[in-house]
């Protein structure tokens, strides 16, 4: 029974790979319109698989998924994805990478230029507009991919460990940028991350997944104000939340690396 404000819903969703690896679920989840939702879970628990089925990139083995009230069958319009792996186009420079989707959509050149410039500034890539991915660090390439997704102004943004290649300081600042963007666009965000502090700092809700097959074992509501930023890490509530996430996750993480809790 989805609430009226649910933006995307998953009901009894499982995914079993043809190799008979049961990777996901059953998962029930409502992503609320405009919320910032993070997913944490042990390595290999099925987080990327969850993103795949939610984005319509692969069909669930069982269960149903809906986006904006319509069943998901293929990638719906209005969904943007930033993948875990580097997906920049090696043959295009940074600004052409970022403009890729807009050009395909046939947008007029002036508007493309405006949006690309804004996104480059936003992602701290302005000085690298004409550089090629090969000349950038892994973290910068990931930022190119984020920018390429953001310029499309998706209504649902799915990010799979986008800051994995960044150092802690840059990660905090990029988190701030992401929050700013989320506030400005009103998009719904689902962020997969392995960093508990990142999940705690950015999210309205954090879903904790069990080891494979991944199911949600805890949903933590943060109650942060919408106008928040990385300074929240000094709030005592932040420490409590991180501690709660870790206590939910600790036993599962040990299972994932093959130890008895």
């Amino acid at each position, binding site marked *: 029974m989805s609430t009226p404000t649910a933006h995307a819903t998953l009901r009894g969703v499982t995914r079993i790979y043809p190799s008979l690896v049961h990777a996901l679920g059953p998962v029930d989840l409502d992503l609320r319109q405009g919320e910032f939702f993070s997913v944490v879970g042990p390595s290999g628990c099925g987080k990327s698989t969850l993103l795949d089925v939610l984005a319509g990139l692969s069909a669930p083995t069982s269960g149903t998924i809906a986006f904006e009230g319509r069943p998901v069958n293929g990638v719906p319009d209005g969904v943007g994805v930033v993948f875990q792996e580097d997906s920049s186009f*090696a043959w295009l420079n940074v600004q052409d990478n970022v403009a890729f989707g807009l050009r395909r959509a046939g947008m007029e050149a002036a508007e493309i230029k405006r949006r690309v410039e804004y996104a480059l500034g936003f992602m701290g890539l302005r000085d690298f507009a004409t550089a090629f991915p090969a*000349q950038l660090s892994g973290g910068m390439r990931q930022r190119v991919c984020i920018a390429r997704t953001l310029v499309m102004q998706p209504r649902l943004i799915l990010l799979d460990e986008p800051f994995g290649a960044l150092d802690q300081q840059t990660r905090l600042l990029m988190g701030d940028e992401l929050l700013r963007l989320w506030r400005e666009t009103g998009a719904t965000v689902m962020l997969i991350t392995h960093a508990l502090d990142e999940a705690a700092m950015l999210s309205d809700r954090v879903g904790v997944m069990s080891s494979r097959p991944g199911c949600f074992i805890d949903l933590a509501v943060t109650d942060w104000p919408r106008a928040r930023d990385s300074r929240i890490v000094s709030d005592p509530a932040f420490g409590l939340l991180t501690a709660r996430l870790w206590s939910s996750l600790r036993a599962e993480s040990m299972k994932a690396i093959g130890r008895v809790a």
Partner: protein
Amino acid sequence: MRGVALTRLGVIAAFIALLEALCRFGIVKPLTLVAPSRMVGTLIDLIQAGDVGDDAARTAIEVAGAFVLAILLGVSIGAVIHAIPRLRRAVAPVLVSWYAVPSFVFYPLFIALLGLSEAPLIAIGAFSATPAMVVATISGLDRVPRVLRRVARVHRMGFWDTLRHITLPSALPSLFTGVKLAFAYAFIGVIAGEFILSGGGLGYAIAYAYESFETAKMYALMLLVLGVGVAVNAGLHTWEGRLLRRRQR
């Protein structure tokens, strides 16, 4: 880079100077080898007299035909093999061992099928060059990152758009290697075919000069073949460099 280029030029110049000296001082007999300066002189004479134009044009057409055919066939066959894993497992050993087959043994067959004209030469050139293009196409398609195919789907791209914007650019480095090899094999195939049996072309002209003891003419023509081969390869190499320079990881 400039240092390397200079060294390369130096090595070539030294080699030519050595040949020149060997011939000038009579250490090597003129019937065996003529001096490089004479090769160039004879070649210029031949060109001015209009003696090579027809043969060169014929060879150029044959090589171009074989080259284009090999690329079209190679890419199509490679794409089909890549798309059908069962087929790929079945033909993989054939593809790998193709290089061990002296493809000229099929030349008489092509003559029998196509008659003594340009056609069997184009066929033998394409026949030698196609496998390299097939292998390059398969490995190029293997190199399209899975994540980029997924990016294409997120951008809701259809088959042709994915091919144009994702598959081809990703496979390009490998395809280009195939193109360079295909040219080399097509060129060798055509020249060698003309050598064995044909009524015209540079290979034929070289063989003819050899049989009529026109050593200077033979070497001049060999120089021309060498020069064209090197020039085309250098051209392809430069083009490749332009296209791929900026994306090296």
